[in-house]
């Protein structure tokens, strides 16, 4: 028992890093991804195609490979990023593609009759978007979005392979020092669980409320 208490400070430090990484990724991905998703649904041809290609490309590659690419590959061509920056960049590239997909799905699942009705009472494009489509899209966006936040927290564990001391790596360091593997792994699992499980529950509750 004492082992757990002794190691807790280190693990909490790692947890903070995990939350920092995941939080940054989610934030940047929303800022980039939601407008891009809207562009994918409403934009002209020459905007939609590159976005489509980007989203499909990124989602066909494992996150780990993307991480390696950014972390090891870019320095080789003289683009030097700190490990933290590289990790966030790589994860953000991945996550933005996900957000674009979720946004697209949110708008495209709105019945076309809604646009018809909005048109028929004389609403222009801006009004249709703001008054009718966006409110409904947000409701459809939130459940899968919260789910993807869970995915991001899980994916952030991969940055441990780049030497960033997140929860995963600090866990391993602690295990390396104390040689008590299984109980500590379980404890680490519970720590991740305690972040993600409430989010999963929230996602399901949102789904019931909105969809």
């Amino acid at each position: 028992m004492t082992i757990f208490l002794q190691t807790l400070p280190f693990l909490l430090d790692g947890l903070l890093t995990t939350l920092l990484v995941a939080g940054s990724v989610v934030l940047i991905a929303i800022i980039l991804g939601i407008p891009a998703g809207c562009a994918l649904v409403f934009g002209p041809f020459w905007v939609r195609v590159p976005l489509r290609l980007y989203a499909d490309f990124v989602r066909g590659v494992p996150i780990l490979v993307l991480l390696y690419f950014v972390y090891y590959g870019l320095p080789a061509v003289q683009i030097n990023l700190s490990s933290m920056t590289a990790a966030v960049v790589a994860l953000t590239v991945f996550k933005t593609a996900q957000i674009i997909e979720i946004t697209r799905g949110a708008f495209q699942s709105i019945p076309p009759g809604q646009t018809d009705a909005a048109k028929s009472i004389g609403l222009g494009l801006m009004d249709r978007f703001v008054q009718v489509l966006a409110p409904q899209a947000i409701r459809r966006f939130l459940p899968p979005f919260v789910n993807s936040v869970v995915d991001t927290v899980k994916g952030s564990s991969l940055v441990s392979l780049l030497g960033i001391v997140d929860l995963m790596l600090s866990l391993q360091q602690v295990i390396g020092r104390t040689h008590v593997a299984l109980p500590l792994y379980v404890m680490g699992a519970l720590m991740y669980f305690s972040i993600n499980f409430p989010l999963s529950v929230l996602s399901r509750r949102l789904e019931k409320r909105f969809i």
Partner: protein
Amino acid sequence: MSDIQLKPVISMTGVTKSFGLNQVLKGVSLDIAKGQVVAIIGPSGSGKTTLLRCINFLEEYDGGSIKIEGTEVGYKDATGQRRRRSDRDLAKLRADAAMVFQQFNLFPHLTATQNVMLGLVKSRGKSKSEARQIAHRWLSRVGLTDKFDAMPSQLSGGQQQRVGIARAVAMEPKVLLLDEITSSLDPELVGEVLAVVKELAVEGRTMLLVTHEMAFAKEVADRVVFTDQGHIVIDAPPNTVFEEQPNDRLRTFLSRFGSFHH
């Protein structure tokens, strides 16, 4: 002054529309005068809904012309060239041909009142308080006095459709387009909706309704139009159409509906 009287509210000439290789409207011409109630009947796929949706440009028609009180819908004819109207122009025109839908299409995140208010505020430029008064007035007229703040999910099908009618009529459109508005309703709810439509017809509103309710069409319409395979086959008063049935295809079509004599 007789010019204004004679100018039809809706004037369609030679309208054609294809979806891919399938030509749904093959040259339709139809005039609707002010105050007339015209029912459009016909088999599925004959183009009646498409016809309606071309009038408020929910579908872009390919050829011919559709004019609402003289203004061409959808296209601007500058220097003999057809150019698509801007979104803003279209929006203004569409409010004048408000539509009620088979699937109701109420905005699920707004209350009944807000559903009716939205077009009044954004399209007709009314203030919020004025729009609310108008909305309440219309909701009461369709019999929903106690449902002002209800969400669509809390309303029955018939109630939702009545909100849909209120939403369209509140715009004071030049013509009301009703697209099979009772086809999605449980039978026992059809009556309440038709009662509202009848009231509006009696008031002298110009209405174009696509319907399968033959008895209702007979009762309320000034003219009945029968479409088949993209053409208007018959355009005559209800008695002619339903009693005399002067056309073979019409007779076959109507025979499926049984008797609708009162």
